[in-house]
């Protein structure tokens, strides 16, 4: 299925091959996802990526490096990606990352705070609150970031590695939002429709604008 916000064109713009029909390199990609995430948990995003399996594998491994090898909390990174999904109006991405944020320990109120770009209410450390603001600012205008913005992070003990980890979180969120948006990739069944109302609300706003 396509994005909730595109009811007038409900199907993805490319074919998404089911797990039981995957062969060759596509199957290798799906197998890697299932090993990491569980049987049947091949997201529609990576079904789309499987049209170019090498890129799918590269991006999945990049995502695993970001989420598995960084020092910043998964909760922080999913909060940033939830906010980006809202900014980019990708309802699948909102549902996916809001679900992941909740799985990382966030309450529904904290998920809403991420959707409202309010790091003070997401249950993040002061360092991660500062990095959240930096992430949103860098996403808004990367060339508007100044040395003073970076120096302000140092007050919280932020390292170079943490800055790069934060910017790569922005990068990754935006990259996946673009694929989903441009191909009308809709949410996975296993997300249970969490935050479906965001996509439906956007469709209403588009119609009344």
């Amino acid at each position, binding site marked *: 299925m396509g994005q909730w916000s595109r009811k007038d064109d409900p199907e993805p713009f490319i074919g998404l091959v089911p797990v039981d029909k995957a062969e060759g390199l596509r199957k290798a990609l799906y197998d890697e996802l299932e090993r990491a995430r569980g049987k049947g948990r091949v997201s529609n995003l990576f079904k789309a990526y499987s049209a170019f399996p090498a890129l799918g594998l590269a991006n999945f491994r990049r995502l695993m490096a970001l989420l598995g090898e960084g020092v910043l909390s998964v909760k922080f990174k999913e909060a940033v990606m939830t906010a980006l999904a809202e900014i980019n109006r990708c309802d699948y991405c909102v549902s996916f990352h809001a679900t992941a944020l909740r799985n990382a320990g966030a309450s529904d109120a904290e998920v809403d705070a991420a959707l409202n770009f309010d790091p*003070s209410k997401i249950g993040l450390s002061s360092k991660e609150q500062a990095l959240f603001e930096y992430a949103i600012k860098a996403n808004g*205008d990367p060339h508007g970031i100044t040395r003073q913005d970076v120096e302000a992070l140092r007050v919280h003990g932020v390292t170079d590695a943490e800055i790069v980890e934060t910017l790569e979180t922005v990068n990754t969120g935006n990259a996946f939002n673009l694929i989903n948006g441009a191909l009308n990739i809709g949410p996975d069944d296993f997300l249970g429709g969490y935050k479906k109302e965001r996509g439906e609300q956007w469709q209403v706003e588009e119609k009344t604008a």
Partner: protein
Amino acid sequence: MTPLAVLGSGAEMDRLAAAAPSLLVTFTGPKCIICKRLAPMLETVVRETGDALASAKVDAEALPDISQKFEIRSLPTTLLFRNGVLADRITGFATAGALRAWLLKNGVGAGA
């Protein structure tokens, strides 16, 4: 998030400024990418502030006289009027957090 209403004239802006204790007006342009990224920040903060803050946006190219009147040199530029008088401005992108602090500093919003 509901998009900000588009102002069609300087007279409309004057009426809104005269009627609302606090008014936020953002100057944008159709090719302004930063404006598009600022929009969700503004919409969120405007929604949170509620009736205490009126809001609108201006296409700077469509209304050059207003842009000149308020010395809009770059886009986006966001103006804040208090009791009909220009109180403050932000140029460029701002996070929702920065906008909340800016409004609070100017006496608008919860806790002001």
